[in-house]
């Protein structure tokens, strides 16, 4: 070692950081920049035309709308599941806790075909909904179901540790001061949980927006109605419309960067009262 690294006696800083950056560039940054450069070769007019075509706009509406709704559903039920898992004891709790991660572990294609079959008119759940005139599979509702499925663990897993670490004294203090359970939840516990709920919401939303495998089997994929943006990118690719695919992809990428930024801000915000 030629120079002392900030008085650090541990070796290998240059080597490991160098390898990290090299591998990162090779696998992630250079390929991603290809997308940016490809987009840059388009004229502004072409770009705008490609990303605002009616069919593309419809796909944004379906994708972002359903993702927003799915993230909202996941926020509500995610808090419920996290609360139940942390606060209460019931038989099979550990099993349920492990099962929450299923959407991370089950490959999306499998999730897609099984959700499609379960919610199809003759499927286990579809059969029950059919008489009530509710069609899930092959409609935008199916997209929502798939998005709820794949985004489900995010809110649970971000809220759970916050609930676990919450001091029991906070609730006891509130009770001593005369607050009832609902007041304690709304005024004391919920504000503490809020940053993690929002983080989980954002992660769940971001995941749903980009999701492909679990959705296409159940969506029906009708242009203008139930066609999601990632599918549209693939359709363009199959038609050798590389420029069109790239343009739409860059819009999606921008959206995910904004989400990533939002999550980072949220995490900073959640630490503001720490200390």
């Amino acid at each position: 070692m030629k120079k002392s690294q900030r008085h650090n006696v541990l070796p290998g800083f240059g080597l490991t950081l160098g390898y990290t950056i090299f591998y990162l560039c090779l696998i992630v940054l250079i390929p991603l920049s290809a997308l940016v450069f490809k987009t840059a070769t388009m004229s502004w007019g072409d770009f705008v035309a490609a990303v605002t075509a009616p069919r593309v706009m419809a796909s944004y509406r379906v994708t972002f709308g359903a993702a927003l709704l799915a993230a909202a559903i996941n926020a509500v039920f995610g808090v419920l599941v996290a609360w139940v898992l942390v606060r209460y004891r019931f038989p099979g709790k550990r099993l349920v806790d492990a099962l929450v991660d299923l959407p991370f572990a089950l490959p999306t294609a499998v999730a897609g075909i099984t959700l499609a079959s379960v919610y199809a008119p003759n499927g286990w759940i579809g059969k029950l909904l059919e008489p009530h005139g509710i069609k899930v599979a092959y409609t935008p509702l199916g997209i929502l179901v798939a998005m709820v499925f794949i985004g489900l663990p995010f809110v649970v897993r971000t809220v759970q540790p916050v609930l676990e670490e919450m001091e029991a004294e906070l609730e006891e203090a509130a009770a001593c001061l005369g607050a009832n359970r609902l007041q304690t939840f709304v005024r004391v516990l919920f504000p503490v949980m809020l940053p993690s709920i929002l983080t989980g919401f954002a992660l769940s939303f971001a995941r749903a927006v980009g999701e492909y495998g679990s959705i296409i089997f159940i969506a029906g994929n009708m242009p203008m109605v139930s066609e999601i943006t990632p599918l549209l990118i693939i359709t363009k690719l199959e038609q050798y419309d590389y420029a069109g695919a790239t343009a739409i992809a860059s819009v999606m990428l921008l959206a995910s960067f904004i989400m990533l930024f939002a999550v980072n801000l949220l995490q900073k915000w959640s630490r503001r009262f720490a200390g």
Partner: protein
Amino acid sequence: MNVAGVLTTKKELSSRNELTEPLLVRWLLIAAALVFLGLFLLVPLAAVFSQALEKGFEAYLAALKEPDALAAIRLTLITAAISVPLNLIFGVVSAWSIAKFDFPGRSFLITLIDLPFSVSPVISGLIYVLLFGLQGWLGPWLQAHDIKIIFAVPGIILATIFVTFPFVARELIPLMESQGKDEEEAARVLGASGLQTFWRVTLPNIRWGILYGVILCNARAMGEFGAVSVVSGHVRGSTNTIPLHVEILYNEYNYVAAFAVASLLGMLAIVTLVAKSFVEWRIRTVKGEE
């Protein structure tokens, strides 16, 4: 657990629950959570196996023994066998540089490493098409030298590496940060070389974290669909992984075969969840002992 133990937990429960919701509210909330999870998680998981065995065990086995299915299984195993070790090495190396050293841009680097998680799988495939495809930057050169990456196995492996890139690193960085570097410095002071320090001090401390990352990384590597779908040529028997094979069978209305092959991935998911729970339990007990 003996009888006294059962009584003990009951007792603790009653005293700990001085401040909780009424029993009815508690059970309603538990029921609501379980119904939600059952509807969205348990039912689909059960459906995979039920559909796979719909036509009996014979048909199930036949679908798995089919040459195209076997080829898909082989390709999936190869893909995971290449991408998981590469990302494991990257994970350990990057965690060492990021967790044990302080340098400007450190948190930005962590964000960059996490980047593949926030990119749609479809885009993850697309970028390699743009790079290596016929109309891509390197396309003409690759064609001239008769190297096929896109619509071939190398493309599948590259896309898989991309989508599983952060798994090991993101487990290890916070773990190694929380462990600090006291133990490594102590080892250095006692005269250990850099590699000795790593093998004998650092590695034993992070082995459960590594295993955790590898389990998640492997599950995604074997199950990735979107990214692989873009770069694969969908050629039966040669560029189809298990998930892609499932898709083809499903689109051909061969549901039993599709679910039979999918059940392999379903089992992988269950094994992953069990292994993950086990490792989490290990990490907790190790922490508890400290």
